């Protein structure tokens, strides 16, 4: 067992380094590779220890938990801040409709499947509903960039709908398990004061301090995130809810300050998200996956099926043809970051057990890969190659 925090840190950063190298070599996202590396280490270390006759496990300490939690808050904040408010305004009607059903149907479907078919208790079923209701904006965005659809109306509409779905997820996560007490009142009150002023205050800080090496504007954002997150946590809500909403409200301001966003990303990707994703992987139990393969397949089918029931007819209602409706539905069936955040929320609050957590995270990962492959292989809308910054013919 490692005692020294430096050695524990070296082990975790070593895993993060390995994940980065694999990610660069394979062009698969570092987040996904970190989950996989975490899962391998989390399962292989105890196994190797048992072979050697010693008790060994991948250490998670309070400070690793803090860094992982901090990582998830900033991931969520960045997810909110990455929205283009103009796109949401332009496509608000269809994106609200598609995004809402894309959240609601799998939320209800997965919750019912977990409760009635798998006989999970009510709280675990709710976590299953939330974790599988998500859509991965990032996975969808990568596909849009590859196909050039991010520059077309259909691509922008799909992305805006994904943001609405994720908003549904964080609202559900924040509201369903909260204690309805004075802490919640205080949290809502402080949020109601901070949120409307956050864009103006952030803009003012950026105008005045951007470029300073001590980064006061980033500290201001962190200050707001910690206050809201702390009050949210005191009400047993989830810190990612205010983080996502704060991201949404300052998105318009940060759009004009790419350098600041870049600095936040560097700090987050280098120091915080590796701890989050590695931990998310380390908590996966290989035994639970092996024993629950059928459950994993069932929940994946429920998630994708429920997205079809909700999104496909809604897309048709907004006059998308069959191919585009199928493409939209499949892309909105993806999930990754918010799904793992929801599952981790459930596990750390003992709402689900280790085996349920493992099942949910594997379903979430599968939902990032399988629908994307099907969408790209069979339903990709016709598109021309879109040139970047060459001097082409």
């Amino acid at each position, binding site marked *: 067992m490692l005692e020294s925090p430096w050695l524990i840190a070296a082990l975790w950063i070593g895993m993060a380094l390995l994940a980065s190298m694999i990610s660069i070599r394979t062009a698969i996202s570092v987040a996904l590779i970190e989950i996989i590396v975490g899962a391998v280490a989390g399962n292989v270390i105890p196994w190797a220890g048992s072979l050697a006759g010693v008790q060994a496990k991948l250490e998670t300490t309070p400070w690793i938990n803090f860094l992982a939690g901090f990582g998830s808050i900033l991931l969520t904040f960045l997810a909110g801040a990455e929205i283009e408010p103009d796109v949401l305004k332009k496509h608000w009607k269809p994106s609200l409709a598609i995004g809402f059903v894309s959240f609601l149907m799998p939320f209800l479907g997965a919750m019912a499947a977990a409760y009635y078919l798998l006989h999970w208790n009510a709280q675990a079923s709710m976590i299953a509903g939330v974790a599988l209701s998500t859509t991965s904006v990032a996975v969808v965005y990568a596909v849009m960039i590859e*196909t050039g659809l991010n520059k077309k109306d259909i691509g922008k509409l799909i992305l805006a709908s994904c943001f609405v779905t994720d908003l549904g997820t964080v609202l559900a996560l924040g509201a369903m398990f909260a204690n309805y007490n004075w802490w919640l009142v205080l949290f809502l009150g402080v949020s109601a004061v901070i949120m409307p002023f956050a864009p103006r205050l952030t803009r003012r800080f950026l105008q005045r301090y951007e470029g300073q090496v001590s980064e006061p504007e980033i500290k201001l954002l962190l200050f707001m995130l910690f206050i809201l997150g702390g009050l949210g946590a005191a009400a047993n809500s989830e810190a990612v809810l205010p983080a996502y909403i704060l991201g949404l409200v300052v998105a318009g301001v940060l759009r004009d300050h790419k350098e600041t*966003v870049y600095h936040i990303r560097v700090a987050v*990707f280098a120091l915080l998200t590796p701890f989050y994703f590695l931990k998310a992987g380390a908590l996966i139990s290989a035994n639970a996956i092996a024993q629950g393969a059928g459950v994993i397949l069932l929940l994946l089918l429920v998630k994708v099926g429920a997205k079809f029931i909700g999104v496909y007819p809604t897309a048709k209602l907004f006059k998308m043809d069959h191919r585009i409706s199928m493409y939209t539905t499949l892309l909105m069936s993806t999930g*990754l970051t918010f799904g793992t955040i929801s599952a981790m929320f459930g596990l750390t609050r003992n709402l689900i057990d280790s085996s349920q957590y493992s099942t949910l995270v594997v379903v979430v990962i599968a939902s990032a890969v399988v629908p994307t492959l099907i969408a790209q292989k069979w339903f990709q809308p016709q598109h021309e190659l879109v040139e970047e910054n060459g001097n082409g013919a």
Partner: protein
Amino acid sequence: MVHKKILHGLDGSKGSFKALEESIELAKRYGAELHTVSVEEVPHYPGTVGEVIEAKHAANGKFGQAMQQARELAQKAGVELHCHVFTGHEVKTIIEFIKEKGFDLLVIGFMGHSALYDRVMGSTCHSLVRLAPCAVLVVK
């Protein structure tokens, strides 16, 4: 065989510049049109939008430099070079581009990966040779 429209694959590596020198020679010899294509590959299944944006940003910088160097090389040889940059899957994008523009020769540098990497991940070079609808010259 006389080539009239040559496409060169530029990824910024030493191998791809060696292939560019060969392409320039061929373009001069045949009086052919010379194009170069670079493909930015964004990470698959990303956890955040930022991961995609930063990967694209890094690729833009890398390919911007490589294109500049390639243009200078071509200019020195008195050959006009048309540069193209796309985002997507390397092999798929290059094959689509060849079909769309009707190139009759693809020139690429040999990329030496380990045997294990090639077996597990497949090699871009092999895939291009297998799938290209035109003649392919691999420069080693």
